[in-house]
Protein backbone atom coordinates (compact mmCIF):
# COMPACT_ATOMS: atom_id res chain seq x y z
CA UNK A 1 0.00 0.00 0.00
CA UNK A 2 1.56 3.27 -1.09
CA UNK A 3 0.96 6.35 0.98
CA UNK A 4 -0.40 9.19 -1.07
CA UNK A 5 1.91 12.13 -0.34
CA UNK A 6 -1.03 14.34 0.61
CA UNK A 7 -1.92 11.89 3.31
CA UNK A 8 1.14 13.20 5.12
CA UNK A 9 0.01 16.79 4.94
CA UNK A 10 -1.61 16.87 8.38
CA UNK A 11 1.68 15.71 9.86
CA UNK A 12 3.78 18.33 8.11
CA UNK A 13 5.28 20.89 10.33
CA UNK A 14 4.27 18.99 13.43
CA UNK A 15 7.73 19.18 14.87
CA UNK A 16 8.29 22.58 13.46
CA UNK A 17 5.36 24.04 15.30
CA UNK A 18 6.75 22.74 18.54
CA UNK A 19 9.79 24.98 18.55
CA UNK A 20 8.41 28.18 17.15
CA UNK A 21 11.39 30.31 18.08
CA UNK A 22 13.88 27.93 16.52
CA UNK A 23 11.71 27.72 13.44
CA UNK A 24 11.44 31.51 13.27
CA UNK A 25 15.23 31.88 13.40
CA UNK A 26 15.69 29.24 10.75
CA UNK A 27 13.17 30.83 8.41
CA UNK A 28 14.66 34.26 9.08
CA UNK A 29 18.11 33.06 8.07
CA UNK A 30 16.73 31.60 4.85
CA UNK A 31 14.76 34.78 4.24
CA UNK A 32 17.92 36.89 4.55
CA UNK A 33 19.84 34.63 2.20
CA UNK A 34 17.17 34.86 -0.47
CA UNK A 35 16.73 38.59 0.09
CA UNK A 36 20.45 39.07 -0.56
CA UNK A 37 20.23 36.81 -3.56
CA UNK A 38 17.33 38.80 -5.02
CA UNK A 39 19.00 42.16 -4.48
CA UNK A 40 22.23 40.91 -6.00
CA UNK A 41 20.34 39.60 -9.02
CA UNK A 42 18.74 43.04 -9.46
CA UNK A 43 22.11 44.81 -9.20
CA UNK A 44 23.60 42.40 -11.72
CA UNK A 45 20.69 42.95 -14.05
CA UNK A 46 21.05 46.72 -13.79
CA UNK A 47 24.77 46.65 -14.47
CA UNK A 48 24.84 44.20 -17.32
CA UNK A 49 21.70 45.30 -19.17
CA UNK A 50 23.86 47.56 -21.39
CA UNK A 51 25.83 44.60 -22.70
CA UNK A 52 22.74 42.92 -24.06
CA UNK A 53 21.62 45.88 -26.12
CA UNK A 54 25.07 46.98 -27.26
CA UNK A 55 25.44 46.69 -31.02
CA UNK A 56 27.92 44.41 -32.73
CA UNK A 57 28.26 46.63 -35.75
CA UNK A 58 29.14 49.81 -33.87
CA UNK A 59 32.61 51.03 -32.98
CA UNK A 60 33.43 53.47 -30.24
CA UNK A 61 36.53 55.62 -30.53
CA UNK A 62 37.93 57.55 -27.57
CA UNK A 63 41.11 59.31 -26.58
CA UNK A 64 43.56 56.51 -25.79
CA UNK A 65 44.74 58.17 -22.59
CA UNK A 66 41.50 59.43 -21.14
CA UNK A 67 37.94 59.80 -22.26
CA UNK A 68 37.70 63.07 -20.38
CA UNK A 69 40.22 64.87 -22.58
CA UNK A 70 38.43 64.13 -25.79
CA UNK A 71 39.78 64.26 -29.34
CA UNK A 72 40.01 66.96 -32.02
CA UNK A 73 36.76 67.33 -33.90
CA UNK A 74 38.59 66.64 -37.15
CA UNK A 75 38.94 63.02 -36.04
CA UNK A 76 35.18 62.64 -36.31
CA UNK A 77 35.24 63.78 -39.94
CA UNK A 78 38.22 61.58 -40.79
CA UNK A 79 36.71 58.46 -39.22
CA UNK A 80 33.44 59.12 -41.02
CA UNK A 81 35.21 59.23 -44.35
CA UNK A 82 36.64 55.70 -44.03
CA UNK A 83 35.24 53.39 -46.66
CA UNK A 84 34.08 50.75 -44.17
CA UNK A 85 32.09 53.26 -42.11
CA UNK A 86 28.48 53.83 -43.07
CA UNK A 87 28.01 56.82 -40.81
CA UNK A 88 29.42 58.16 -37.57
CA UNK A 89 28.27 60.42 -34.78
CA UNK A 90 30.05 62.33 -32.04
CA UNK A 91 29.13 62.57 -28.37
CA UNK A 92 30.22 65.01 -25.67
CA UNK A 93 29.43 64.73 -22.00
CA UNK A 94 27.70 67.92 -20.93
CA UNK A 95 27.49 67.46 -17.17
CA UNK A 96 23.84 68.48 -17.11
CA UNK A 97 22.17 70.04 -14.08
CA UNK A 98 18.53 71.01 -13.89
CA UNK A 99 17.10 72.78 -10.83
CA UNK A 100 18.82 70.66 -8.17
CA UNK A 101 22.62 71.05 -8.35
CA UNK A 102 23.08 67.73 -6.57
CA UNK A 103 21.34 65.70 -9.23
CA UNK A 104 23.60 64.82 -12.14
CA UNK A 105 21.63 64.35 -15.34
CA UNK A 106 22.80 62.29 -18.27
CA UNK A 107 23.09 64.99 -20.97
CA UNK A 108 25.06 64.59 -24.20
CA UNK A 109 25.75 66.95 -27.03
CA UNK A 110 25.53 64.84 -30.18
CA UNK A 111 25.94 65.25 -33.91
CA UNK A 112 22.90 64.76 -36.15
CA UNK A 113 23.66 61.24 -37.29
CA UNK A 114 23.36 59.90 -33.76
CA UNK A 115 19.67 59.14 -34.22
CA UNK A 116 20.30 57.42 -37.54
CA UNK A 117 22.59 55.02 -35.70
CA UNK A 118 20.34 54.46 -32.68
CA UNK A 119 17.08 53.74 -34.43
CA UNK A 120 15.64 52.04 -31.37
CA UNK A 121 15.08 55.48 -29.87
CA UNK A 122 11.54 56.04 -31.08
CA UNK A 123 10.96 59.74 -31.75
CA UNK A 124 7.63 59.89 -33.50
CA UNK A 125 7.21 61.00 -37.12
CA UNK A 126 8.20 64.67 -36.98
CA UNK A 127 10.45 64.46 -33.92
CA UNK A 128 13.78 64.26 -35.65
CA UNK A 129 13.05 66.94 -38.24
CA UNK A 130 11.84 69.38 -35.58
CA UNK A 131 14.98 68.82 -33.56
CA UNK A 132 17.26 69.31 -36.56
CA UNK A 133 15.53 72.54 -37.44
CA UNK A 134 16.03 74.05 -33.99
CA UNK A 135 19.53 74.98 -32.85
CA UNK A 136 18.58 74.92 -29.14
CA UNK A 137 16.46 71.80 -29.53
CA UNK A 138 16.72 68.79 -27.24
CA UNK A 139 15.55 65.19 -27.50
CA UNK A 140 14.73 63.79 -24.07
CA UNK A 141 13.73 60.39 -22.76
CA UNK A 142 10.16 59.76 -21.69
CA UNK A 143 11.42 58.87 -18.22
CA UNK A 144 13.05 62.19 -17.46
CA UNK A 145 10.28 64.09 -19.27
CA UNK A 146 7.74 62.52 -16.97
CA UNK A 147 9.89 63.17 -13.92
CA UNK A 148 10.18 66.92 -14.60
CA UNK A 149 6.86 67.34 -16.39
CA UNK A 150 8.50 68.42 -19.65
CA UNK A 151 6.31 68.72 -22.74
CA UNK A 152 7.29 69.17 -26.37
CA UNK A 153 7.61 72.89 -26.96
CA UNK A 154 8.76 73.74 -23.41
CA UNK A 155 11.96 75.68 -23.01
CA UNK A 156 13.92 74.75 -19.90
CA UNK A 157 17.15 76.21 -18.44
CA UNK A 158 19.89 73.57 -18.51
CA UNK A 159 23.08 74.16 -16.53
CA UNK A 160 26.38 72.33 -16.59
CA UNK A 161 28.73 71.52 -13.75
CA UNK A 162 31.65 71.49 -16.23
CA UNK A 163 31.15 74.25 -18.77
CA UNK A 164 30.59 78.00 -18.66
CA UNK A 165 28.93 80.02 -21.36
CA UNK A 166 31.03 82.51 -23.32
CA UNK A 167 28.41 85.17 -22.89
CA UNK A 168 28.38 84.69 -19.13
CA UNK A 169 24.77 83.56 -18.93
CA UNK A 170 24.16 80.95 -16.24
CA UNK A 171 22.18 78.44 -18.22
CA UNK A 172 21.51 77.12 -21.69
CA UNK A 173 17.88 77.59 -22.69
CA UNK A 174 16.92 74.27 -24.21
CA UNK A 175 13.75 73.65 -26.17
CA UNK A 176 12.18 70.20 -25.90
CA UNK A 177 11.59 69.25 -29.52
CA UNK A 178 10.98 65.51 -29.16
CA UNK A 179 10.52 62.87 -26.49
CA UNK A 180 11.89 59.43 -27.24
CA UNK A 181 10.71 56.06 -26.02
CA UNK A 182 12.86 52.95 -25.98
CA UNK A 183 12.35 49.41 -24.80
CA UNK A 184 15.98 48.77 -24.02
CA UNK A 185 17.81 52.09 -23.72
CA UNK A 186 17.99 54.33 -20.70
CA UNK A 187 14.82 56.48 -20.66
CA UNK A 188 16.45 59.40 -18.84
CA UNK A 189 18.97 60.80 -21.30
CA UNK A 190 18.93 64.31 -22.77
CA UNK A 191 20.47 64.99 -26.20
CA UNK A 192 21.51 68.52 -27.28
CA UNK A 193 22.94 69.74 -30.59
CA UNK A 194 26.70 69.54 -30.78
CA UNK A 195 26.73 72.84 -32.66
CA UNK A 196 24.81 74.66 -29.91
CA UNK A 197 27.18 73.33 -27.28
CA UNK A 198 30.32 73.91 -29.30
CA UNK A 199 29.68 77.55 -30.12
CA UNK A 200 28.72 78.55 -26.59
CA UNK A 201 31.28 76.87 -24.31
CA UNK A 202 34.41 78.65 -23.06
CA UNK A 203 36.78 75.71 -23.38
CA UNK A 204 36.97 72.37 -25.06
CA UNK A 205 35.83 73.97 -28.29
CA UNK A 206 36.10 71.78 -31.39
CA UNK A 207 36.77 68.62 -29.47
CA UNK A 208 34.61 65.47 -29.22
CA UNK A 209 34.43 62.90 -26.44
CA UNK A 210 33.34 59.80 -28.31
CA UNK A 211 32.95 58.92 -31.94
CA UNK A 212 30.43 56.19 -32.65
CA UNK A 213 30.78 54.56 -36.05
CA UNK A 214 28.28 52.29 -37.68
CA UNK A 215 29.93 49.90 -40.10
CA UNK A 216 28.66 48.82 -43.50
CA UNK A 217 29.65 45.24 -42.74
CA UNK A 218 29.71 43.93 -39.14
CA UNK A 219 32.41 41.40 -40.05
CA UNK A 220 34.92 44.22 -40.53
CA UNK A 221 34.88 45.39 -36.88
CA UNK A 222 38.35 44.06 -36.18
CA UNK A 223 40.09 45.48 -39.25
CA UNK A 224 38.25 48.79 -39.11
CA UNK A 225 38.96 49.38 -35.44
CA UNK A 226 42.66 48.78 -36.15
CA UNK A 227 42.51 51.06 -39.20
CA UNK A 228 41.02 53.89 -37.12
CA UNK A 229 43.65 53.66 -34.41
CA UNK A 230 46.43 53.38 -37.05
CA UNK A 231 45.23 56.60 -38.62
CA UNK A 232 46.03 58.54 -35.45
CA UNK A 233 49.02 56.55 -34.26
CA UNK A 234 52.05 58.67 -33.31
CA UNK A 235 49.95 61.84 -33.34
CA UNK A 236 49.53 64.06 -30.28
CA UNK A 237 46.21 62.41 -29.55
CA UNK A 238 46.14 58.69 -30.07
CA UNK A 239 42.86 56.81 -30.04
CA UNK A 240 41.42 53.60 -28.73
CA UNK A 241 38.68 51.94 -30.74
CA UNK A 242 36.60 48.95 -29.73
CA UNK A 243 33.17 47.54 -30.39
CA UNK A 244 30.35 48.98 -28.39
CA UNK A 245 29.75 45.54 -27.01
CA UNK A 246 33.36 45.25 -25.85
CA UNK A 247 33.12 48.64 -24.12
CA UNK A 248 29.92 47.65 -22.38
CA UNK A 249 31.46 44.33 -21.53
CA UNK A 250 34.63 45.80 -20.05
CA UNK A 251 32.52 48.16 -17.97
CA UNK A 252 30.43 45.19 -16.88
CA UNK A 253 33.60 43.24 -16.10
CA UNK A 254 34.86 45.94 -13.78
CA UNK A 255 31.52 45.75 -12.03
CA UNK A 256 31.81 41.98 -12.33
CA UNK A 257 34.66 41.98 -9.83
CA UNK A 258 32.34 43.57 -7.34
CA UNK A 259 29.76 41.04 -8.46
CA UNK A 260 32.18 38.20 -7.71
CA UNK A 261 32.68 39.48 -4.18
CA UNK A 262 28.94 39.78 -3.72
CA UNK A 263 28.48 36.28 -5.09
CA UNK A 264 31.03 35.04 -2.61
CA UNK A 265 29.22 36.75 0.25
CA UNK A 266 25.88 35.36 -0.83
CA UNK A 267 27.37 31.87 -1.21
CA UNK A 268 28.75 32.11 2.31
CA UNK A 269 25.35 33.22 3.58
CA UNK A 270 23.69 30.34 1.74
CA UNK A 271 26.15 27.90 3.23
CA UNK A 272 25.57 29.20 6.76
CA UNK A 273 21.86 28.96 6.10
CA UNK A 274 22.24 25.38 4.95
CA UNK A 275 23.98 24.54 8.22
CA UNK A 276 21.28 26.25 10.27
CA UNK A 277 18.48 24.49 8.40
CA UNK A 278 20.21 21.13 8.45
CA UNK A 279 20.75 21.51 12.19
CA UNK A 280 17.10 22.41 12.74
CA UNK A 281 15.99 19.39 10.76
CA UNK A 282 18.44 17.05 12.49
CA UNK A 283 17.32 18.25 15.90
CA UNK A 284 13.68 17.99 15.00
CA UNK A 285 14.13 14.42 13.80
CA UNK A 286 16.16 13.48 16.86
CA UNK A 287 13.49 14.87 19.18
CA UNK A 288 10.82 12.99 17.32
CA UNK A 289 12.54 9.62 17.18
CA UNK A 290 9.79 7.95 19.27
CA UNK A 291 7.08 9.62 17.24
CA UNK A 292 8.57 8.49 13.96
CA UNK A 293 8.78 4.99 15.44
CA UNK A 294 5.09 5.21 16.32
CA UNK A 295 4.26 6.23 12.75
CA UNK A 296 6.13 3.19 11.51
CA UNK A 297 4.33 1.01 14.04
CA UNK A 298 1.03 2.26 12.68
CA UNK A 299 2.09 1.11 9.22
CA UNK A 300 3.78 4.14 7.66
CA UNK A 301 6.53 2.80 5.41
CA UNK A 302 10.19 3.77 5.64
CA UNK A 303 9.75 5.74 2.43
CA UNK A 304 6.75 7.59 3.82
CA UNK A 305 8.80 8.67 6.82
CA UNK A 306 11.66 9.71 4.54
CA UNK A 307 9.24 11.74 2.45
CA UNK A 308 7.75 13.34 5.53
CA UNK A 309 11.09 14.62 6.79
CA UNK A 310 12.19 15.81 3.34
CA UNK A 311 8.86 17.53 2.80
CA UNK A 312 9.24 19.34 6.11
CA UNK A 313 12.69 20.50 5.15
CA UNK A 314 11.41 21.69 1.78
CA UNK A 315 8.51 23.46 3.44
CA UNK A 316 10.92 25.41 5.63
CA UNK A 317 13.17 26.45 2.75
CA UNK A 318 10.14 27.21 0.59
CA UNK A 319 8.58 29.52 3.16
CA UNK A 320 11.94 31.23 3.78
CA UNK A 321 12.65 31.47 0.05
CA UNK A 322 9.25 32.91 -0.85
CA UNK A 323 9.42 35.45 1.99
CA UNK A 324 13.01 36.40 1.10
CA UNK A 325 12.45 36.76 -2.60
CA UNK A 326 9.13 38.50 -1.99
CA UNK A 327 10.89 41.03 0.23
CA UNK A 328 13.60 41.44 -2.41
CA UNK A 329 10.96 42.03 -5.08
CA UNK A 330 9.24 44.70 -3.01
CA UNK A 331 12.58 46.26 -2.08
CA UNK A 332 13.79 46.45 -5.68
CA UNK A 333 10.48 47.95 -6.75
CA UNK A 334 10.78 50.59 -4.03
CA UNK A 335 14.49 51.25 -4.58
CA UNK A 336 14.13 51.00 -8.34
CA UNK A 337 11.80 53.99 -8.41
CA UNK A 338 14.39 56.24 -6.79
CA UNK A 339 17.36 54.74 -8.63
CA UNK A 340 15.64 54.95 -11.99
CA UNK A 341 17.90 57.62 -13.46
CA UNK A 342 21.08 55.74 -12.59
CA UNK A 343 20.01 52.12 -12.87
CA UNK A 344 16.97 51.87 -15.12
CA UNK A 345 17.11 48.07 -15.12
CA UNK A 346 17.29 47.60 -11.35
CA UNK A 347 14.90 44.68 -11.14
CA UNK A 348 15.07 40.93 -10.53
CA UNK A 349 15.15 39.14 -13.89
CA UNK A 350 12.78 36.18 -14.42
CA UNK A 351 15.75 33.84 -14.70
CA UNK A 352 16.76 34.71 -11.13
CA UNK A 353 13.34 33.58 -9.87
CA UNK A 354 13.85 30.27 -11.62
CA UNK A 355 17.34 30.02 -10.13
CA UNK A 356 15.94 30.78 -6.68
CA UNK A 357 13.33 28.04 -7.10
CA UNK A 358 16.12 25.58 -7.84
CA UNK A 359 18.05 26.81 -4.80
CA UNK A 360 14.99 26.33 -2.59
CA UNK A 361 14.71 22.79 -3.87
CA UNK A 362 18.41 22.03 -3.58
CA UNK A 363 18.72 23.53 -0.10
CA UNK A 364 15.59 21.80 1.13
CA UNK A 365 16.91 18.45 -0.02
CA UNK A 366 20.47 19.11 1.15
CA UNK A 367 19.32 20.18 4.61
CA UNK A 368 16.82 17.34 4.93
CA UNK A 369 18.56 14.39 3.37
CA UNK A 370 20.71 13.25 6.29
CA UNK A 371 17.95 13.35 8.93
CA UNK A 372 15.48 11.93 6.40
CA UNK A 373 17.66 8.91 5.73
CA UNK A 374 18.24 8.51 9.47
CA UNK A 375 14.47 8.57 9.99
CA UNK A 376 13.99 6.05 7.21
CA UNK A 377 16.52 3.65 8.73
CA UNK A 378 15.14 4.02 12.23
CA UNK A 379 14.42 0.62 13.85
CA UNK A 380 11.04 0.69 15.55
CA UNK A 381 12.00 -1.49 18.48
CA UNK A 382 15.21 0.36 19.27
CA UNK A 383 13.52 3.72 18.95
CA UNK A 384 10.62 2.77 21.21
CA UNK A 385 12.94 1.26 23.78
CA UNK A 386 15.00 4.46 24.11
CA UNK A 387 11.93 6.66 24.49
Amino acid sequence: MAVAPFALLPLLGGSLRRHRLRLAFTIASILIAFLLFGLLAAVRNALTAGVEVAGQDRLITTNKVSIIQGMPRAYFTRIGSLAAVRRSASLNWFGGIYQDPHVQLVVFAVSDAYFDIYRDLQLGPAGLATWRADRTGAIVGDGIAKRYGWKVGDTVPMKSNIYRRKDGAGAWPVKITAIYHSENQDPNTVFLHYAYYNETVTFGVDSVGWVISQLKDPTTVETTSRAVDAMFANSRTETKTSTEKAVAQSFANQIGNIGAILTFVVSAVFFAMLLVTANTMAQSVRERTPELAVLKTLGFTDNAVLTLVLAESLLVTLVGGVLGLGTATLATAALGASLKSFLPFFQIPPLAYLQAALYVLALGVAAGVVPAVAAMRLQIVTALRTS
Partner: protein
Amino acid sequence: MDGPLVEVRGLTKEYRRGDEVVPVLAGLDLSIARGDYVALMGPSGSGKSTLLNLLGGLDQPTAGEIRIDGVSIGELGSNELAAWRARSVGFIFQMYNLLPVLTAEQNVELPLLLTSLSKPERLARARAALALVGLSDRARHRPRELSGGQEQRVGIARAIVTDPLLLLCDEPTGDLDRKAGDAVLDLFDALNREAGKTIVMVTHDPRAAARARRILHLEKGVLAREEG
Protein backbone atom coordinates in the same frame (compact mmCIF):
# COMPACT_ATOMS: atom_id res chain seq x y z
CA MET B 1 -11.06 -18.58 8.12
CA ASP B 2 -10.80 -21.46 10.57
CA GLY B 3 -7.94 -22.37 12.85
CA PRO B 4 -6.20 -20.21 15.42
CA LEU B 5 -5.59 -16.56 14.63
CA VAL B 6 -2.03 -16.65 15.89
CA GLU B 7 0.29 -19.61 15.45
CA VAL B 8 3.88 -19.45 16.65
CA ARG B 9 6.34 -22.31 16.04
CA GLY B 10 9.86 -22.58 17.43
CA LEU B 11 10.21 -18.83 17.95
CA THR B 12 13.77 -17.90 18.89
CA LYS B 13 15.13 -14.44 19.53
CA GLU B 14 18.67 -13.61 20.48
CA TYR B 15 20.24 -10.22 20.85
CA ARG B 16 23.88 -9.82 20.00
CA ARG B 17 26.06 -7.40 21.86
CA GLY B 18 29.52 -7.74 20.32
CA ASP B 19 30.56 -11.37 20.80
CA GLU B 20 28.04 -11.88 23.53
CA VAL B 21 24.74 -13.53 22.61
CA VAL B 22 21.75 -12.73 24.83
CA PRO B 23 19.10 -15.42 24.37
CA VAL B 24 15.60 -14.08 25.06
CA LEU B 25 13.18 -16.49 23.41
CA ALA B 26 14.20 -20.12 22.93
CA GLY B 27 11.95 -22.13 20.61
CA LEU B 28 8.65 -20.82 21.88
CA ASP B 29 5.36 -22.32 20.63
CA LEU B 30 2.06 -20.53 21.01
CA SER B 31 -1.42 -20.69 19.59
CA ILE B 32 -4.13 -18.08 20.12
CA ALA B 33 -7.70 -18.64 18.96
CA ARG B 34 -9.84 -16.01 17.31
CA GLY B 35 -11.65 -13.94 19.90
CA ASP B 36 -9.29 -14.96 22.67
CA TYR B 37 -8.05 -12.58 25.33
CA VAL B 38 -4.61 -13.53 26.57
CA ALA B 39 -2.63 -12.02 29.42
CA LEU B 40 1.14 -12.46 29.19
CA MET B 41 3.02 -12.39 32.48
CA GLY B 42 6.55 -13.05 33.58
CA PRO B 43 9.47 -11.48 35.39
CA SER B 44 11.04 -8.30 34.15
CA GLY B 45 13.46 -9.04 31.33
CA SER B 46 11.82 -12.38 30.51
CA GLY B 47 11.04 -11.25 26.95
CA LYS B 48 7.36 -10.30 27.09
CA SER B 49 7.81 -7.08 25.11
CA THR B 50 10.10 -8.91 22.73
CA LEU B 51 7.42 -11.51 22.04
CA LEU B 52 4.74 -8.87 21.56
CA ASN B 53 6.94 -6.91 19.13
CA LEU B 54 7.62 -10.05 17.14
CA LEU B 55 3.88 -10.83 16.96
CA GLY B 56 3.26 -7.34 15.63
CA GLY B 57 6.02 -7.54 13.03
CA LEU B 58 8.03 -4.74 14.64
CA ASP B 59 11.11 -6.92 14.95
CA GLN B 60 12.52 -10.00 13.20
CA PRO B 61 12.96 -13.35 14.99
CA THR B 62 16.29 -15.15 14.95
CA ALA B 63 14.45 -18.35 14.03
CA GLY B 64 10.93 -19.77 13.97
CA GLU B 65 7.69 -18.88 12.29
CA ILE B 66 4.78 -16.59 13.12
CA ARG B 67 1.50 -17.06 11.22
CA ILE B 68 -1.28 -14.60 11.81
CA ASP B 69 -4.59 -15.19 10.08
CA GLY B 70 -2.76 -17.52 7.74
CA VAL B 71 -0.06 -15.00 6.82
CA SER B 72 3.52 -15.97 7.60
CA ILE B 73 4.73 -12.51 8.49
CA GLY B 74 8.41 -13.41 8.30
CA GLU B 75 8.02 -13.72 4.56
CA LEU B 76 6.74 -10.19 4.06
CA GLY B 77 9.03 -7.46 2.74
CA SER B 78 9.36 -4.28 4.74
CA ASN B 79 6.68 -2.35 2.82
CA GLU B 80 4.31 -5.32 2.79
CA LEU B 81 4.88 -5.75 6.49
CA ALA B 82 4.07 -2.08 7.12
CA ALA B 83 0.87 -2.42 5.10
CA TRP B 84 -0.03 -5.62 6.91
CA ARG B 85 0.53 -3.92 10.26
CA ALA B 86 -1.68 -1.00 9.26
CA ARG B 87 -4.48 -3.42 8.36
CA SER B 88 -4.21 -6.16 10.91
CA VAL B 89 -2.73 -5.02 14.20
CA GLY B 90 -3.53 -2.36 16.76
CA PHE B 91 -0.80 -1.44 19.26
CA ILE B 92 -1.38 -0.02 22.71
CA PHE B 93 1.69 1.12 24.65
CA GLN B 94 2.37 1.69 28.31
CA MET B 95 3.36 5.31 27.65
CA TYR B 96 0.46 5.86 25.19
CA ASN B 97 2.82 7.23 22.51
CA LEU B 98 0.43 9.81 21.14
CA LEU B 99 1.78 12.51 18.85
CA PRO B 100 1.90 15.59 21.09
CA VAL B 101 1.26 18.17 18.38
CA LEU B 102 -1.91 16.50 17.13
CA THR B 103 -5.33 16.66 18.79
CA ALA B 104 -6.98 13.51 20.14
CA GLU B 105 -9.08 13.31 17.00
CA GLN B 106 -6.06 13.75 14.71
CA ASN B 107 -4.15 11.10 16.64
CA VAL B 108 -7.00 8.66 16.13
CA GLU B 109 -7.28 9.61 12.47
CA LEU B 110 -3.59 8.92 11.90
CA PRO B 111 -3.80 5.22 10.91
CA LEU B 112 -6.66 6.04 8.54
CA LEU B 113 -4.33 8.26 6.49
CA LEU B 114 -3.01 5.01 5.10
CA THR B 115 -6.41 3.96 3.82
CA SER B 116 -8.32 5.20 0.80
CA LEU B 117 -11.02 6.77 2.98
CA SER B 118 -12.02 10.37 2.28
CA LYS B 119 -11.49 13.07 4.87
CA PRO B 120 -15.15 13.10 6.03
CA GLU B 121 -15.13 9.31 6.28
CA ARG B 122 -11.93 9.40 8.27
CA LEU B 123 -13.32 12.00 10.63
CA ALA B 124 -16.54 10.07 11.11
CA ARG B 125 -14.59 6.94 12.00
CA ALA B 126 -12.22 8.77 14.31
CA ARG B 127 -15.17 10.33 16.14
CA ALA B 128 -16.90 6.96 16.42
CA ALA B 129 -13.75 5.44 17.92
CA LEU B 130 -13.43 8.33 20.37
CA ALA B 131 -17.10 7.94 21.32
CA LEU B 132 -16.49 4.24 21.95
CA VAL B 133 -13.80 5.05 24.51
CA GLY B 134 -15.97 7.79 26.01
CA LEU B 135 -13.95 10.79 24.90
CA SER B 136 -16.22 12.55 22.43
CA ASP B 137 -15.91 15.74 24.45
CA ARG B 138 -12.11 15.67 24.31
CA ALA B 139 -11.69 15.40 20.53
CA ARG B 140 -9.97 18.76 20.16
CA HIS B 141 -7.68 18.37 23.14
CA ARG B 142 -4.00 17.74 22.74
CA PRO B 143 -2.35 14.92 24.71
CA ARG B 144 -0.84 17.26 27.30
CA GLU B 145 -4.34 18.53 28.08
CA LEU B 146 -5.51 15.01 28.94
CA SER B 147 -5.05 12.81 32.00
CA GLY B 148 -3.03 9.60 31.70
CA GLY B 149 -6.17 7.49 31.64
CA GLN B 150 -7.69 9.66 28.94
CA GLU B 151 -4.49 9.52 26.92
CA GLN B 152 -4.55 5.75 27.10
CA ARG B 153 -8.16 5.67 25.95
CA VAL B 154 -7.18 7.85 22.96
CA GLY B 155 -4.42 5.29 22.36
CA ILE B 156 -7.04 2.52 22.37
CA ALA B 157 -9.25 4.49 19.98
CA ARG B 158 -6.27 4.86 17.66
CA ALA B 159 -5.57 1.12 17.87
CA ILE B 160 -9.12 0.06 17.02
CA VAL B 161 -10.03 2.72 14.45
CA THR B 162 -8.87 0.55 11.55
CA ASP B 163 -10.80 -2.41 12.95
CA PRO B 164 -7.78 -4.74 13.21
CA LEU B 165 -7.93 -8.46 13.96
CA LEU B 166 -5.46 -8.33 16.77
CA LEU B 167 -4.79 -5.90 19.60
CA LEU B 168 -1.32 -6.02 21.15
CA CYS B 169 -1.02 -4.20 24.46
CA ASP B 170 2.25 -3.74 26.37
CA GLU B 171 1.48 -2.95 30.01
CA PRO B 172 -1.45 -0.72 29.07
CA THR B 173 -2.35 -0.02 32.68
CA GLY B 174 1.21 0.06 33.97
CA ASP B 175 1.27 3.81 34.32
CA LEU B 176 -2.30 4.34 35.49
CA ASP B 177 -3.95 4.43 38.90
CA ARG B 178 -6.48 1.76 39.74
CA LYS B 179 -9.55 3.67 38.61
CA ALA B 180 -8.13 4.71 35.24
CA GLY B 181 -6.66 1.23 34.81
CA ASP B 182 -10.04 -0.35 35.46
CA ALA B 183 -11.65 1.88 32.84
CA VAL B 184 -9.10 0.66 30.31
CA LEU B 185 -9.64 -2.95 31.30
CA ASP B 186 -13.41 -2.48 31.01
CA LEU B 187 -12.85 -1.29 27.47
CA PHE B 188 -10.79 -4.38 26.67
CA ASP B 189 -13.56 -6.55 28.06
CA ALA B 190 -16.10 -4.86 25.84
CA LEU B 191 -13.85 -5.00 22.79
CA ASN B 192 -13.26 -8.69 23.38
CA ARG B 193 -16.75 -9.76 24.30
CA GLU B 194 -18.85 -7.45 22.16
CA ALA B 195 -16.59 -6.68 19.17
CA GLY B 196 -14.87 -10.06 19.15
CA LYS B 197 -11.36 -8.57 19.12
CA THR B 198 -8.46 -10.88 19.86
CA ILE B 199 -6.29 -9.31 22.54
CA VAL B 200 -2.79 -10.07 23.79
CA MET B 201 -1.91 -8.02 26.85
CA VAL B 202 1.43 -7.94 28.66
CA THR B 203 0.97 -7.10 32.32
CA HIS B 204 2.63 -7.33 35.72
CA ASP B 205 -0.66 -6.80 37.51
CA PRO B 206 -2.44 -10.06 38.54
CA ARG B 207 -5.71 -8.15 38.85
CA ALA B 208 -5.47 -7.03 35.26
CA ALA B 209 -4.43 -10.49 34.13
CA ALA B 210 -7.45 -11.96 35.88
CA ARG B 211 -9.73 -10.11 33.44
CA ALA B 212 -8.31 -12.14 30.53
CA ARG B 213 -9.58 -15.52 29.39
CA ARG B 214 -6.11 -17.05 29.55
CA ILE B 215 -2.93 -16.19 31.41
CA LEU B 216 0.44 -17.25 29.97
CA HIS B 217 3.69 -17.17 31.94
CA LEU B 218 6.94 -16.51 30.13
CA GLU B 219 10.03 -17.88 31.82
CA LYS B 220 13.50 -18.63 30.52
CA GLY B 221 12.49 -18.05 26.95
CA VAL B 222 9.49 -20.34 26.78
CA LEU B 223 5.90 -20.40 28.03
CA ALA B 224 6.17 -22.08 31.38
CA ARG B 225 2.60 -22.69 32.42
CA GLU B 226 -0.86 -21.56 31.70
CA GLU B 227 -3.89 -20.63 33.79
CA GLY B 228 -7.40 -19.80 32.74
